[in-house]
């Protein structure tokens, strides 16, 4: 019983510590994508809260489509790299 209890306390503590670091990192992320994503709440709840900042809708649309087009979501264990580097492009026939 003590073993089970210690394990529960340990898991709760470790996850909380990881959680705190992840929260602080995510709140300090200043990349364009992080700022755009920070406007959209994905936590639980029935009514979506209003966004905090006014962000140009075209940037959101572009980022969303860009992410959608470049990232492979088909089955497989290791995700292949995205098709965003021009140096990857090999013209047909060469």
């Amino acid at each position, binding site marked *: *019983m003590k073993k089970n209890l210690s394990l529960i*306390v340990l898991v709760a503590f470790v996850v909380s510590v990881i*959680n705190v670091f992840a929260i*602080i990192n995510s709140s300090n992320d200043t990349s364009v994508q992080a700022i755009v994503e920070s406007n959209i709440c994905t*936590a639980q*709840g*029935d009514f979506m809260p*209003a966004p*905090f900042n006014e962000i140009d809708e075209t940037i959101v649309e572009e980022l969303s489509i860009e992410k959608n087009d470049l990232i492979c979501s088909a089955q497989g264990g290791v995700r292949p790299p995205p098709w965003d580097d021009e140096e990857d492009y090999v013209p047909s026939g060469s």
Partner: protein
Amino acid sequence: MITFIQQYGVVILHPIVLICWFLVYKNKSGDSQLTNFSIKMMMIFLLIFIIWDFIALLFSDNVSLARNIYLFFWVIITIYEFFVILKALFISLSFGKSQNKILLIILFILSIPVILAAILSHTKRTYNPINTTDFYNMILLLFGTVLILRNILSTGFFVDNIESFFIYTGFALYFGLHILASNTVSINFRYYWFFAQYATLISLIYWMGSVFFIWKIKSKHLF
């Protein structure tokens, strides 16, 4: 129709599911300690959501206040979910009441990141902290739920725990689908919220449907 389901589907389903589980609560007899606790906690869980929805609808015109109401209830429901899963885990592992102090300490440890995330979201005007912590919390809650289900299935009194089984499989569905909705590696982040709403909708339909199966399995007249 799709817009209506997206906006009000879960709001309408919460009281319906609460009524269904109240009927189960009224007709229960000779159930285990875990089942008695789980049904009560399930009804309070639904009640918190109903109050949350009611207040959110009432102050939907005031954007700033609506945001703070969201953050406040998000903290309440997350800590409540931790309490329910932890207490159910303690009951299913046959821990005595003497362990209640340890339960409170664990609950306190788990509440720190939740409260911190809500404060940071409010002060830094970003949803990233609560999105991040919701993701980690859901993993932890799913893990706890799976352990409870394991304990229910390993005991020899499955029929006594049938309500608990359906409540926690519903929670496993709810937490599992919300992990998909709140994770940061999925594509098309713009639609995560709607994915989360459908996750809630699916779980509520499951909980509602499970009342029928409980009635059929236990052969009790609920209606």
